[in-house]
């Protein structure tokens, strides 16, 4: 391998990239957009559902119970109502998702141990329904002391994310998702594009070796991957107070492993794809299972066994375990050696395969 030639290819790649406004915008825009999307909009723990209260009892006890429910922050009072019928109307109009009805005989029912409060839910949205289910767990039915809010019948205790904020869980994984999406696609497209434009026929008639060509094309993108990682880390810390309990060095090591794994996968795709469009399709073929099976969105443990096998083959699965371990639990890479090793093996296999499959020939 000739370092000057390698350097020339890298410089050429960076120069072309600098002129490619769309790709540049994607490199910076994608992390920002996804962070905001996943961080704010896709909030897996529902909060502030619009609600209305019809308190027909109007006793000190009923007001206190209603206050307790509002204090949970699962609901937020958006409208007022006098009767349960008005609540139903509001629900139907879509102005509220949850209605709280306190019957006139609230105190009596409480003493009798019967249901004292009715929570009406917009059942057409099952996420809302399950969120409202949490409300029903509030200790209102206890006849003796309804102020004892600490004695919740079922308590959910979350260790590393006590406030159960999903952003904290999502941001570290998001680094992986963004790297998977951009890195695979960029390399695959970068090589297929040269074939499409005819540049490859010129390149392969020069003394450039296969290894020089592949590594020279891939390294600039590895740098870009680490820039994206930095961007997500900074924004995550700033916007969502995502903690970093492990070492920054380990975070970058883990990110580098994922970047290289994805780049070598991109290379492999580029040796098979005939057009940029095909390269894109193949990328999404890998991307979709990565998002769904890696544990980024759904817990790994809850998946059927075959899905888990597939997930073990995906670099993102291992990265998610690494990065959550490092950032949220303060683990270091050596604690998580099986996943680091899995990523290294993935890189070795993909690189060998792609250099094998890439020929300096047209047929």
């Amino acid at each position, binding site marked *: 391998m000739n370092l000057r*030639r390698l350097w020339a290819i890298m410089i050429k790649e960076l120069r072309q990239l600098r002129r490619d406004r769309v790709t540049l915008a994607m490199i910076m825009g994608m992390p920002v957009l996804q962070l905001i999307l996943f961080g704010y909009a896709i909030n897996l723990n529902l909060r502030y559902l619009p609600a209305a209260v019809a308190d027909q009892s109007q006793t000190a006890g009923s007001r206190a119970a209603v206050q307790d429910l509002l204090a949970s922050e699962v609901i937020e009072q958006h409208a007022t109502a006098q009767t349960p019928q008005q609540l139903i109307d509001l629900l139907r109009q879509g102005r509220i998702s949850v209605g709280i009805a306190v019957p006139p005989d609230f105190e009596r029912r409480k003493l009798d141990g019967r249901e004292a409060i009715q929570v009406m839910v917009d059942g057409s949205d099952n996420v809302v329904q399950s969120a409202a289910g949490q409300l029903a767990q509030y200790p209102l039915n206890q006849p003796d002391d309804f102020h004892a809010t600490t004695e919740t019948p079922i308590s959910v205790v979350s260790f590393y994310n006590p406030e159960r904020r999903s952003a904290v869980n999502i941001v570290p994984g998001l680094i992986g998702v963004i790297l998977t999406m951009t890195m695979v696609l960029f390399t695959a497209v970068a090589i297929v594009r040269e074939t499409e434009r005819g540049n490859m026929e010129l390149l392969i008639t020069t003394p450039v070796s296969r290894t020089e060509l592949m590594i020279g094309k891939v390294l600039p993108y590895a740098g870009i991957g680490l820039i994206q990682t930095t961007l997500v880390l900074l924004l995550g810390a700033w916007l969502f107070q995502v903690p970093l309990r492990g070492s920054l060095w380990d975070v970058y090591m883990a990110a580098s492993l994922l970047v290289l794994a994805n780049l070598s996968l991109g290379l492999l795709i580029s040796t098979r794809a005939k057009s940029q469009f095909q390269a894109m399709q193949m990328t999404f073929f890998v991307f979709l299972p990565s998002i769904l099976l890696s544990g980024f969105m759904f817990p790994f443990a809850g998946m059927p066994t075959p899905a888990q096998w597939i997930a073990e083959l995906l670099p993102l699965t291992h990265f998610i375990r690494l990065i959550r371990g490092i950032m949220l639990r303060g683990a270091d890479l050596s604690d998580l050696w099986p996943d680091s090793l899995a990523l290294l093996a993935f890189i070795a296999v993909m690189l060998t395969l792609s250099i094998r499959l890439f020929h*300096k*020939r047209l047929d």
Partner: protein
Amino acid sequence: MTDTAIHARGLTKRFGTLVAVNAVTLDVPRACVYGFLGPNGSGKSTTIRMLCGLLTPTEGDIEVLGLHIPQQAEQLKRRIGYMTQKFSLFDDLSVRQNLEFLATVQGLSRQREKSRVAELLKRYHLDDRQEQLAGTLSGGQKQRLALAGATVHDPELLLLDEPTSAVDPESRRDFWEKLFELADTGTTILVSTHYMDEAERCHRLAILDRGNLVADGTPKELTGELEGRTFLVRANSPRAARDALADAPGVLSVAQIGNELRVLMRDNRATVDTLRSRLASAGLEGDTEAVSPSLEDVFVVATHQQQQREEQAA
């Protein structure tokens, strides 16, 4: 070191059932401009690609600059320059950046690279365009840049695939001047074309037709074989004269060029009088004279013979 730059025997390339190149045998002497003449789809590009090791021949042996191809293709790559039919430099790099990239990749030292790029920019009249993006150059400028790129490392052999297809006649002449300059310094040049006037300039040429090599030699040798078989007819009604002559015995082809007809005979027994009487018997008048054969005629004869051979084989 031999005097042959390229030596190919029974070169064949099949794509599935299609025979793109059929048993081509070829010898290209050193320091010579060797033309590859053939219509679209005749296998020019395929042959050139096999010669530089980009395509593996289905059958046949190739030796280029003393190296066995495709086995020793990697060694060959330092010694040849290849200009693809389609512009293959980087559209989104400047003229200078393209040349610098190729110079580095071809292994020129840092100092050599600098002087060589400056020299090429000057020689190919690109110095005032050096910061322009290659993709925005005109057709002729692109060809010059591509030639500069192919010669950056002073290769012994240049393979040029239809280098002048998008270029005006004036630029084509300039381009060919450059080719002869290169040949004078000892570079062997294989150039494909479908322009007769370009073929005529070559030291030697091979004519390809649907994958077959149908004739080769110097332009003089090739046209010399047709001596006495070509005539020019100026008739008042060229269309009628054309019809009258087309199926006359001994006539191989009649082509109309403006108001004149170019008649090609099957052998050299015919004279001006034969044609005159033929016209007269059709009630037509016309001036007839013998002319010297052109490469176009060579091409017509060669493809015709090939057709006959194929019909016999069938």
